[in-house]
């Protein structure tokens, strides 16, 4: 028995660890860079210098020492802007994803567990929300609430709660039909406490995976909003505004697009892989 239960864990170990540690190191790097941005960044991210405009990165001819990743059309240092951009990206992703997660998961669990009117109202709301193209919805919301970080975060939470609500509702529904819910009743549990003590631990791995996914999505939404000039002020160093700028100057200074794109790519990928990895890591059944 003991052998049977430890053997798969050992076999799973190495693959799981790599899938956990690679994305984790990238996220750690982001956090460190974001926290120590002031000391790490070689230049002021807002400082313009028209004499140094469109400098290429270090591996190309014509580069300038100190400007490792080159400069944009206004002569701002790409590396420094990316470092400060990480700050905004992380802030948005943590706050927005957590808000979205709590809001959507609670509604999803209530709908899945209680059924009846709660379920009907929440499902109808989800239907209505899903009939909006999400990007257009976000753009519209930020236009209504005015640009700024708070609006961006609010817009993400107001749109993406449906993802949590849908998935968590479905998972809660599955769990609610398990016999352990009935045995909790036999064991004297109140209906509400069964939801939190019995069902929640079983839905939690799904919620964690979704939360991680949402952190990646939040970064993308912020970038999209910056891209259409609706995030925070256009001067501020966000990856999205750099991408917008890079898209415009693509034929003259493609590196302005490339480096923030790489950062976005790895961040989104890491959060997504991390979600799946964490789900498996903290699931006693899958272990």
């Amino acid at each position: 028995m003991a052998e049977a239960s430890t053997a798969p864990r050992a076999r799973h170990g190495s693959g799981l660890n790599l899938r956990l540690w690679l994305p984790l190191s990238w996220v750690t790097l982001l956090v460190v860079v974001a926290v120590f941005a002031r000391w790490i960044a070689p230049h002021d991210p807002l400082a313009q210098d028209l004499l140094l405009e469109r400098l290429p990165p270090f591996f190309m001819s014509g580069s300038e020492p100190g400007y490792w990743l080159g400069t944009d059309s206004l002569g701002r240092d790409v590396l420094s802007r990316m470092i400060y951009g990480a700050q905004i990206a992380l802030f948005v992703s943590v706050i927005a994803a957590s808000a979205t997660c709590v809001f959507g998961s609670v509604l999803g669990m209530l709908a899945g567990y209680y059924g009846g009117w709660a379920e009907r109202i929440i499902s109808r709301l989800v239907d209505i929300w899903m009939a909006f193209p999400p990007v257009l919805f976000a753009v519209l919301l930020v236009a209504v609430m005015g640009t700024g970080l708070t609006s961006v975060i609010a817009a993400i939470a107001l749109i993406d709660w449906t993802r949590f609500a849908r998935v968590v509702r479905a998972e809660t529904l599955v769990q609610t039909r398990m016999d352990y819910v009935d045995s909790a009743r036999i064991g004297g549990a109140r209906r509400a406490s069964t939801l939190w003590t019995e069902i929640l631990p079983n839905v939690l791995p799904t919620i964690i995976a979704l939360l991680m996914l949402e952190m990646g999505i939040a970064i993308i939404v912020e970038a999209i909003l910056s891209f259409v000039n609706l995030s925070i002020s256009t001067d501020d160093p966000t990856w999205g505004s750099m991408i917008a700028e890079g898209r415009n100057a693509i034929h003259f200074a493609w590196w302005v697009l490339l480096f923030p794109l790489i950062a976005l790519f790895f961040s989104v990928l890491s959060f997504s892989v991390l979600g799946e990895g964490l789900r498996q890591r903290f699931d006693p059944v899958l272990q």
Partner: protein
Amino acid sequence: MLLKTLITRLLTMIVTLFGVAVVVFTLVRVAPGNPIAMMLPPGASEEDIARLTALYGFDKSLVQQFFIWLGGVVQGDFGTSITLRQPVDQLVLSRLPATLELAAMALVIALLLGGTVAVLGARNRGTGTEVGLDLTSGAVLSIPDFLWGLIFVLIFGVLWPVLAISGRIDPRIEFDFATNFYLIEGLLRGRFDVVGSTLSHMVMPAMSLALPLAAMIAQLLKQNLKGELVQDYATIARVRGFSETTVILREALRNAALPTIALVGVQFTFLIGGTVIVERLFAYEGLGNMAIDAVINRDLPLIQGIVLLFAAIFIMINLIVDLSYTLLNPRLRHG
């Protein structure tokens, strides 16, 4: 059964559309900024402002405005665009074909690509090939359409410029379009320069939209296929001497595709939602691009019209998926 599904769905559709109308109307009306003021040159007289405000009905109460607008919508009158000064329905319909062609192309790519990878993975289950395909589709899936678009712009637009990165067709091509379905019309009228140019503009945005969906189909369909392949009916087919490929294609695929369809429906609406930003990225003259302009310019009637149209399309897709699911499943068809 089918009729019951249809009627229930249609009723839900009306409720959902009404909900969308309420939400979008409320949103655009609480937006700060007076759209009338934006239309007029600075220093316009008070009378001018009052006249226009009355013309667009902004002087009435919000509830009144809503029902006047909704009444018009029901009769096919979506109002007049403030910035473009044309009826909203005409504007929207002129852009819709571009978006439809793009979305349809993306869907076809996603189905072919995803389906092939799924069958390959199921055929080679338990081998390194499957692991490789899984890892690839997992990575592809987590990168959203916006990033794929940027990656394509960088690679095929700049570093290896073989494809057009903005617009819908080469403006130098002279062709008198009868409709706005450039690709279909070009094909039907045998103008392959039109087809070629349209395709070269469409392939990158279509791929950007298709890749995440293709990866999702690949994963889900493969998982469903594997589930079907351990069922006893598949085992019996093997004992009967049918090859593994035959078992997959003839016995398992239809069963595995059924639950996949339900999900592909929802994901296809996400794909269409993605056209908004992808069209923007490639300056593709579709509905989504127009929508963002409308928001930036505070063109309230236009925003309302576009959002409502998107919602109607999404709901129609869900309806079609539901009905085809019912039709394809003998259990539901007869039950």
